[in-house]
């Protein structure tokens, strides 16, 4: 945290250097043109100042050459800036594949973060250096925007849709974290800290007393069972709904003929509005869970489904006691009669 009277922000992420390079070029270009205009205005105003009350100006008022030059040169500069800016933008908005997956929920005037190993934090975020971090964010009420100046990164947090933000910290330290989209009375209070630590300190912190509950994947598995998802989504397949093993990240054939990538947004929407993107070959019998599962639990369920596609252990189908499948009014049909009317092959098979 800088004290005193800073004029230039610290840079603590890999992307910060690129944005600063853009900033320096832009400032230099602007300084050049501003001085050019100011100097020529002052020079002309002094050199050609009016010497007698009824004096009139000369007749130099057109030159196609000049007009073309000061159209082409600015055009060239701005297009160059466009390409450079677009390149940096694409790097900023596409997380690398091997990033550490964190989740964040913005709520009126506080931030809640969750690490893949289960640690939950409010208004603070502990991250290791040298490792790309990808944060999947959603808001529970109004628009917010997660903004960390030293990482030069910012992304709005929209209710109803996942948005992602990524960075790779380089310099350990404690830095500011702001909400940048106006969100109401305490908008200026919705701030926090980012603790950037060396990987060893980060592991120590993870093992330490941080308020950890089960890793989201495991917590998701418990939810998956307690809500009774596994009564239909039988892991080995053959249930009334597609098995979810290995479904995350793959193309899914929908009933209306489209194919969609089964990413977090698709899964979230299918939990809240099941018939909206129904998988081909299955009946729309799944009840909606809108309003029954909180955003955090949705993150956990999706983390569990993600873990299924990279070899995680599936929760045993409750073949033993269908009564255990409490929670939502799961259809009374026992799981024994595994062959529903619809074909079992399903997209996910």
């Amino acid at each position, binding site marked *: 945290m800088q004290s005193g009277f800073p004029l230039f922000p610290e840079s603590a992420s890999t992307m910060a250097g690129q944005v600063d390079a853009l900033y320096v070029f832009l400032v230099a270009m602007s300084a050049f043109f501003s001085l050019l205009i100011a100097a020529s205005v002052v020079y002309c105003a002094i050199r050609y100042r009016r010497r007698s009350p009824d004096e009139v100006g000369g007749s130099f008022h057109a030159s196609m050459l000049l007009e073309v030059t000061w159209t082409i040169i600015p055009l060239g500069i701005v297009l160059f800036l466009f390409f450079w800016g677009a390149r940096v933008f694409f790097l900023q908005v596409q997380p690398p594949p091997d990033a550490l997956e964190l989740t964040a929920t913005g709520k009126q005037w506080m931030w809640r973060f969750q690490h893949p190993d289960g640690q939950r934090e409010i208004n603070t975020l502990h991250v290791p250096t040298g490792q790309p971090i990808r944060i999947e964010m959603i808001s529970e009420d109004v628009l917010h925007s997660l903004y960390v100046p030293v990482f030069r990164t910012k992304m709005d947090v929209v209710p109803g849709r996942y948005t992602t933000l990524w960075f*790779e910290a380089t310099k350990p330290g404690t830095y500011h974290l702001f909400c940048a989209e106006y969100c109401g009375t305490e908008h200026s209070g919705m701030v926090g800290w980012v603790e950037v630590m060396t990987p060893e300190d980060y592991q120590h912190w993870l093992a330490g007393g941080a308020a950890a509950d089960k890793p989201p994947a495991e917590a998701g598995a418990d939810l998956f069972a307690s809500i009774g998802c596994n009564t239909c989504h039988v892991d080995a397949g053959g249930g009334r709904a597609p098995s979810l093993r290995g479904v995350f990240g793959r193309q899914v054939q929908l009933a209306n003929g489209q194919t969609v990538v089964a990413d977090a947004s698709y899964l979230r929407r299918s939990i809240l509005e099941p018939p909206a993107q129904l998988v081909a070959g299955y009946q729309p019998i799944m009840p909606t869970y809108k309003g029954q599962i909180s955003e955090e639990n949705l993150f956990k369920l999706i983390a569990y489904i993600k873990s299924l596609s990279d070899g995680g252990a599936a929760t045993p189908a409750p073949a033993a006691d269908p009564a255990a499948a409490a929670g939502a009014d799961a259809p009374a049909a026992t799981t024994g009669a595994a062959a529903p009317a619809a074909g079992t092959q399903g997209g996910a098979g």
Partner: protein
Amino acid sequence: MPRLHLDKPGDYPLAHHVIPVRTYLAVFTALIVLTGLTVFVAFHHLGDPWNDVVAITIALTKATLVVLFFMHVKYSTAMVRLCVISAIFFLLMLFGITWSDYWARKVPAIRVQQTTYDVR
């Protein structure tokens, strides 16, 4: 004010271009027929995009008929035509670019692009 029974266009120097009644009736019948057609087509399945395409084309033809004949744009000054065209142009720009945002959300290729990371 004597009632003038003259019907030739030239007889009303100060009146705007007078369109004969039979043109109005012809346009009217065309509009009614097109309305019937669009309702008829709506009840028959023509494959996913085609129903919408036909409905929009019919609506556009009806609108063009009304603009050209009922609103006299066919006989109006160039400036009036410019008003019509500029409104249409900026509407299409609004629809098009806004729609491109929602279209690009669904196109996975653009959204999740795996580019190499020489950044690290």
